């Protein structure tokens, strides 16, 4: 069973989103997503300072099996990226919630609350399994 922490928000495209105390949000891909993709071999991150729109691709994760875009969950500006994951893509498989990919300063802080909560994301995953 994949993990879905209760304190995070989620997207339909399988990113997790964490609200930080400084007003930024941290983004990664979910445990469910890494499980589907399998062994990760390449991660491409957005550039710091990039302006992103909600739902726009701003990174790529590639496993041995397939490539998958990573989407910006909300609009804003990229303030940090985690080069640890691009240097060691397997860290996404080891702990998808520790292997964050980028931080965004939201254009509109309330956007985060419109994302899925853990229960809604689990329901989405369950529905995609059929």
């Amino acid at each position, binding site marked *: 069973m994949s993990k879905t922490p209760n304190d995070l928000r989620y997207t339909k495209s399988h990113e997790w989103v964490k609200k930080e105390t400084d007003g930024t949000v941290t983004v990664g891909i979910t445990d469910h997503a890494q499980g589907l993709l*399998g*062994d990760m*071999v*390449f991660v491409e991150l957005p550039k710091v300072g990039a302006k992103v729109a909600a739902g726009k691709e701003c990174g790529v994760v*590639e496993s*041995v099996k*397939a*490539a998958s875009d990573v989407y910006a969950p909300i609009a804003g500006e990229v303030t940090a990226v985690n080069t640890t994951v691009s240097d060691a893509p*397997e860290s996404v*498989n080891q702990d998808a919630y520790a292997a964050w990919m980028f931080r965004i300063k939201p254009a509109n802080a309330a956007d985060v609350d419109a994302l899925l909560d853990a229960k809604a994301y689990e329901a989405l995953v369950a529905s995609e399994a059929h």
Partner: protein
Amino acid sequence: MGQRTPLYDSHLAAGAKIVDFGGWDMPLHYGSQLDEHHQVRRDAGMFDVSHMVVSDFKGAKVRDFLRLLVANNVDKLKTPGRALYTCMLNSKGGVIDDLIIYYLNEQWFRIVSNAATHDKDLAWMTAAAKEFGEVTVSERPELAMIAVQGPNAKEKTYAALGENLREAAGTLKPFHSVTIGELMIATTGYTGEDGFEIILPAKAATFTWQMLAEAGVAPCGLGARDTLRLEAGMALYGSDMDETTTPLEAGLAWTVALDPKDRHFIGRDVLEKQLAAGVPRQLVGLLLEDKGVLRSHMKVYCAQGEGETTSGSFAPTLGKSVALARVPAGVAVGDRVDVDIRGKRLAARVVKYPFVRHGKSCID
């Protein structure tokens, strides 16, 4: 639900992720495709390849028939047990399938062919046999097949299945086989490593798998099988060649026997014409120099024109991405080409393949 091999329950018990492969429910991996890949390069792994098709060809004229049926020459098979890799061509020189032919005795040859091409292969082979006459073709679905591969594969197989195997199979050179009762042990494989392919009664498959596992042979799925064969530069039917390509355009000229000149085989005239006119396309190896992962069906831009990757992946042994690509004639090892990866043109270098042999990189 697809077809299942006798080892299906063993795969589930070992935690396999099952996928459809040519109508079969097969293990993709048992947790980590990368770990399984390294296990085969460094130690020993086993693959359930029971979905592959085993057919026996029998009759007084079976050798004459096979001379006609395939592009390689079965006259290279002189001693019982010898194996031969070949393509079976249609009348246009296109590849219907690639096969391994085992010479068991003068009245009995065995062919192992791909699962996904089962129906068309059998239809083609039985029609040709019927027209030729005096040759019977019988499928052997009651047989299973396990490939044990890796530097320690043979030792672990002896440990699992008995020391008497060492005597029977230990001195076999590559592409040979020996039959012991209902077992056929062959020194063939699809990984670029040492090892055996074992054909055995389906009813003995579960027990044999278990004994191999207890001897430390790790179950490996089709995912690792694909990255291993790609690193080893071995063609995959349906990706690197099919009915629209001749073996000459698929890096398989070495499997085409044009001598002796008077041996007629199906597709021969087309290959001769192609050679005379110049083969327009060739299969080359690519090593990605930029960051990313090559996949199949990516466009390749060369000085001589455009081509396409036919197989591509991250190569775990190299830590880089490689591909096989069909490109115009004239492209040579050392050339720089661009590959369109998801809308970006990234740099790759044309390299010789195999990319990896016996655990070691072959790339300069």
